[in-house]
Every structure is written in C-alpha cells, then in structure tokens.
C-alpha cells in the first residue's frame, strides 16, 4: 500500500520505468527521487544532459540540487559531484543537514564529492589571454575519482563576477556544456533569476534541454513556493506551476492532479456503524476504498456520523487517520463519548490517530504535504478529514479544490477509504446542496444532513444524494443525535410534507389510534358474521328436520294405502269364493303392494 521512505532510512527504489510514465517521451530520463518531481517531469531530468535550475535568492535552488545528488547516490547508486561557487563545503553540509542529509558521510563513502571554487575578483589580475581549463580539470578529476554520474554546478554565474572578460566566459560556458554532455553526466546548472531574462547572464541560451524555474512568493501573509517547468525538450510536460514545500526530509513537489485514474477497486462493502444508514445504502453499507462526503450545517452531526464510521472501521481492525481542523483531538474524543462512541480505546490501541491543526497555521501546500507525509508514515486503511471546508479559511479557493482532488486521488490509489465532512451554509429555503469547494462531483457517495424547521422546532433530516454503484434509498429520514449515538427514524410524509420531531410523534400517535380503531371494527364485523352464520346454520337445520318429518309421514301413508288395497283384494276373493261362482285361488301372496288399487295406479 503506502510506499515511501526518507533519506534517513534509505530504501532501494526502483527507477521509474518508462511504462509507468504518463507522458510519452523519447529521451531517457534520470529519476531525481524527489517526491513529486519525477511525476511532473515524466520520469526525471534528461539523462546525460544539463538542466538549468533558476530562481531568485532563497528559492531553494541549492537545496534542490543537493537533494538531487543525495538521492542519486543513495537511491539510485549514482555518485555525484557538487561544484560550489558560493557556499563552502561545511555550509553546504549544515544546510543539507536541515533536510536530514548527511553529506559528510556520503563524502567519506565516496558517494559524493564537493569542490568549492573560490573566486576572489580582487585577488586576480588579468594579464593576457586565458581560459577556464582549471575548472574542467577539477571537475573531470572529481568525476573520475568517484565515478560520478551526476553533477551540480551552483552557481556558474559567479564566474561573471569573478572574471571580467565576458567573451572568454561565454565561450568557456558553451564549451563546458558540451563537455558535460560528452562526459554523459546528468547535470544541474543553477542560475540567479534575472530582471527581464530567466537568468541574470542569459544561461538559458546555452542550456536548452531542460529549464526549471523556482519561485518563492508571499500571498496573504503566507509564503508559498512554486516550481515550473519552463522547457523540456523532447518531452511532454506539465506547464503549470506546481506548489512545493521544503521540509525536514527534503522537497515535496505537489502535482495538482494525479496523473492517471487507474486504481484497483474493491467489491467489499463496509458498514457505516449506523445500522439504518447501512440499510439505506442497499442494505450493506458503502464500498471500501471510496470517498464519502458528509455535509451539513453547523452542529448537524457530521462529526458524529464520521465518528460512527471510525468506530466501525476500528472494530474491523483497520487503522484510521483522522485530520481535524477545528477541534483538538481530546475535544473530539470527549464529544464522541457524550454520544456513547468510545474512540479513546482505539486511540490507545494505536488503531486511531488524530491529527489536529489550525488551517491558518500553514499555507495550503504545507498542509497537503504534512497530510501526505502522515499518510505515508501511518499507512491507514481509513481516513477522515473533518471538515475539509475549514481549509476555505485560506485565501486560495481553487487551491483547496485542487488539493482536495489530489488528496482524494492519493488516498484512493492506496486503497484506503476516505470520509470528508463539509460545512454548508445555513440559508433558509435554499437547498443546502452546493458545497463551497465543488468536490461533490468527485466523491463517490454524498450524505446530506439538512435542517428543517416546523412546529416551533428544528429537526434534522438525512438523505443520500448519491452513492455510486450502490442502489441506495431515496428516502429522507429523520436524523437524531441521542445519547446512544445516531439514530435514523423513518420520517413521516404527511399531507403537508415531511413531518419530523414532535409533529412526527403526533402523527405516529394518530396513526396508532386509527389502527386500533380499525382493528376494533374488524373484530366487531367478524363477530357479527359468526353470529349470522350460526343463525343461518340453525335455520337450515330446522328446515331439514321439517322435510324429514314430511317424508316420513308420506311414507307412512303410502304403506297404509297399500295394506288397505291388499286387504280389499283379499276380501273380494273371499267373497267370490263364498258365492261359489268360481273356484279361484287367491292370487299368490305377493310381496309388497302390487294390487292394482286406484292409489297404485295414480302412483304409476
């Protein structure tokens, strides 16, 4: 993840490969090892050729040149020669020590050679023709002694104050630059800024492969340093001015935008620490390695929301680095304790680091450089900036946006998740959706805390304005800060709009009453229906019983009628027999009523 190192602990860096450069170039380049410089030059300075480094007094030319040699020796195994016209070797050593470089050790190890060229005009009398072969001899000797591949000449314009014959000087200058190219060393030539020309004596005429200008100005009481690539032959280069800072471990040039947008993405979803908010984010929370903006008015709960996320991250065992610009670390801890979020434990375990600094303390570049350095030292998986809008206290608004972009890109590239809080202006009636520094389009997710006033109270709503790649809820919920942390409550959408606070409570009570009422009605109906069913059932039973009775009666009647018919038939036969008319047998007994009685006939 976070790759870095300082001169105090030299690491073997791989020279930047050509394929990782964003700019296409046909020239081989010598990496400087200076943070940020290789990036904007597309790999470093032109290899084997001289580069002109110009700037006014105190711009940092000598320090930059020194770092170039030191890193060349320590990181890339290329010894270097420093030919100094102005500072003595002890002075150089003392200045370099402020950057953490030990020149004496490098000299002792044969990695560095310092030749102080003293030219005292008053000591020299010119009596005839001469050249500067002495310089060449010394430089050549120094290079050969340690096998140097890099050279610094600081500053060759001192020759112009030492010798009066400009014709000779210029001729020798031209010769020197050819000589350097022949030797194949990568050189930095420094020059003083001229009034109308880049350098006082027009060195830029001779050194044409690469020209870098340093600038140091005071803006709004804050000093800022800028670096600009004026020219870089054969290579596409950024022509902007890039801010840089000089700190205890060297230069850091801060490229304004990241060179590429290709960084690995994670599929993992992580919790915000607030269950209801996770739900709103498709049920799973947000993606690891993304950037989340939490914006809202003062006191709306942005820091608390961020604190929940921090807590969740620490629980997962992730390292968290929190930058705060308005509260001290202890203040943050205390405030979060009051809502039952215990960050102190994580701090003690070393999982959480809080860095607090007032914005007005430094210039923007210094802040950025500080933050980058802390990031590289602590290597967090989770970063919080609270609030990023505090940086607006400074003068430079575009600068803040650029810086924000730079930070977001760096953090994203390292795969860490970033949470930014931002204060929005509390303007009644207007949607608080404009963030002052315009980063809302860059972040991956945006949670807005909005105030709403109704019923004599002020309540807070939360909604997710965007969450890239997540099917997020478009609901608005009420955001409550309780003594157990943040709670999200579904907001009521009544006929007048969203109801919050006491209005919501009222509405909830009303709804409950109505629900109870309805339930009661339903019960009543059910009872009535049951009763009717029972009644109906009884009637059916009664009718059935009636029918049965009638049927039985009918059967009875039928039976008697048959018997009667049978009896009559027998009687008739008996009478006939008794009259002796015919001897007829009684019809054989037949089972059932089969006699042809009128009733039978009617029945058929």
């Amino acid at each position, binding site marked *: 993840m976070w790759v870095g190192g300082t001169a105090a602990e030299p690491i073997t860096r791989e020279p930047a490969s050509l394929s990782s450069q964003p700019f296409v170039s046909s020239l081989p380049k010598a990496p400087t090892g200076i943070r940020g410089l290789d990036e904007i030059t597309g790999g470093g300075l032109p290899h084997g050729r001289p580069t002109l480094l110009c700037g006014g007094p105190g711009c940092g030319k000598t320090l930059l040149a020194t770092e170039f040699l030191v890193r060349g020796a320590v990181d890339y195994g290329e010894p270097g020669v420093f030919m100094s016209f102005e500072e003595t070797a002890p002075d150089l050593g003392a200045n370099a020590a402020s950057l953490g470089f030990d020149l004496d050790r490098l000299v002792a190890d044969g990695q560095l050679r310092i030749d102080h060229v*003293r030219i005292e005009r008053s000591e020299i009398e*010119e*009596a*005839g023709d001469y*050249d*500067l072969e002495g310089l060449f001899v010394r430089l050549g000797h120094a290079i050969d002694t340690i096998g140097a591949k890099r050279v610094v000449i600081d500053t060759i314009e001192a020759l112009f104050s*030492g*010798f009066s014959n400009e014709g000779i000087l210029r001729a020798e200058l031209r010769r020197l630059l050819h000589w350097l190219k022949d030797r194949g060393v990568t050189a930095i030539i420094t020059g003083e800024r001229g009034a109308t020309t880049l350098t006082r004596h027009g060195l830029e005429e001779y050194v044409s492969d690469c020209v870098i200008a340093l600038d140091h100005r005071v803006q709004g009481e804050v000093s800022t340093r800028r670096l600009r690539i004026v020219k870089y032959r054969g290579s596409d280069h950024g022509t902007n001015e890039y801010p840089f800072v000089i700190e205890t471990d060297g230069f850091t040039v801060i490229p304004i935008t990241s060179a590429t947008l290709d960084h690995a993405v994670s599929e993992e979803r992580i919790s915000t620490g607030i269950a209801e908010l996770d739900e709103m984010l498709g049920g799973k929370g947000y993606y690891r390695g993304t950037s989340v903006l939490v914006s809202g008015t003062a006191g709306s709960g942005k820091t608390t929301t961020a604190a929940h996320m921090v807590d969740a991250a620490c629980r997962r065992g992730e390292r968290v680095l929190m930058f705060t610009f308005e509260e001290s670390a202890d203040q943050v801890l205390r405030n979060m304790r009051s809502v039952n979020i215990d960050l102190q434990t994580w701090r003690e375990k070393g999982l959480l680091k809080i860095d607090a600094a007032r914005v007005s303390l430094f210039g923007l570049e210094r802040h950025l450089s500080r933050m980058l350095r802390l990031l590289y030292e602590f290597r967090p998986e989770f970063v919080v900036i609270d609030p990023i809008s505090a940086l607006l206290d400074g003068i430079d608004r575009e600068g803040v946006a650029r810086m924000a972009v730079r930070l977001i890109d760096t953090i994203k590239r390292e795969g860490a998740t970033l949470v930014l809080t931002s204060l929005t202006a509390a303007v009644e009636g207007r949607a608080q959706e404009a963030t002052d520094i315009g980063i809302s389009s860059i972040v991956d997710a945006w949670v807005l805390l909005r105030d709403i006033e109704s019923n004599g109270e002020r309540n807070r709503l939360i909604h997710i304005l965007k969450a890239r790649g997540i099917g997020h809820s478009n609901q608005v919920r009420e955001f409550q800060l309780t003594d157990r942390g943040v709670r999200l409550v579904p907001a009521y959408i009544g006929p007048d709009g969203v109801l919050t606070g006491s209005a919501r409570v009222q509405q909830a009570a009303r709804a409950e009453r109505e629900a109870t009422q309805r339930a009661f009605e339903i019960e009543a109906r059910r009872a009535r229906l049951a009763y009717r069913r029972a009644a109906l059932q009884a009637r059916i039973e009664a009718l059935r019983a009636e029918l049965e009775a009638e049927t039985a009666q009918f059967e009875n009647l039928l039976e008697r009628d048959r018997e009667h018919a049978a009896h009559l038939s027998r009687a008739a036969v008996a009478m006939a027999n008794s009259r002796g008319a015919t001897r007829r047998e009684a019809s054989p007994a037949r089972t059932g009523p089969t006699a042809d009685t009128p009733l039978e006939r009617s029945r058929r």
Partner: protein
Amino acid sequence: MMNGYVPETAADAARRAEDQETWQLRLYVAGQTPRSLAAIANLRRFCQEFLADRYTIEVIDVLEQPQLAQRDEIVAIPTLVRRLPPPIRKIIGDLSNQERTLVGLDVVKR
C-alpha cells in the same frame, strides 16, 4: 639636524626585503598548448628582466596533476602565483601584457 640618519618607512623596508629575498613563482599550465607555452616563455623573459637571479619558477601541468588544481584553487589557465615574498598574488593569462604582470606581481620597475 640629525646626523644623516633618516628613519625607514615600512614600504621601504618591504622593498628592501623584496630586493633581497628570492621570489618563488609557480605557473599553472595545461598541457603544451600555445597559450601555456607562451606563458612559460613570457614568464622567463619577465623574470630575467625584472628579477635578475632572485627567482625560482615552478611549472605545474594540471593535466598531469589534476589534484593540485583543486588544492591550489586554480580556475583559469594559465595562472601565475607569487608565493614568496608574501602576500600571495595571482595573475591569470599568458602574461603577454607586461604592465599588468608588473602590477599583478607588484614588482617595482628599477
């Protein structure tokens, strides 16, 4: 009036020292270039004319001994250094300009 005794000024004393001391001169050249050879020749002639026999000339070729160029802080070639009598003085160039050479070495014309 005193008895013919005039106190000596410091300048006079120095002059007297110069007149009596041997001059030590060191000429730095680079190889056998025309300019270097001219410087050597000019120096010899100069010394014969103005310093009689009270001089020594040492010629150092920085191409052969480059480390001496750094040690003795040589930038221009040729460089002539007056080492004795003190103070040290440096003159650069092929010494074709006699006036400047005299001034540079601080030699008083007799």
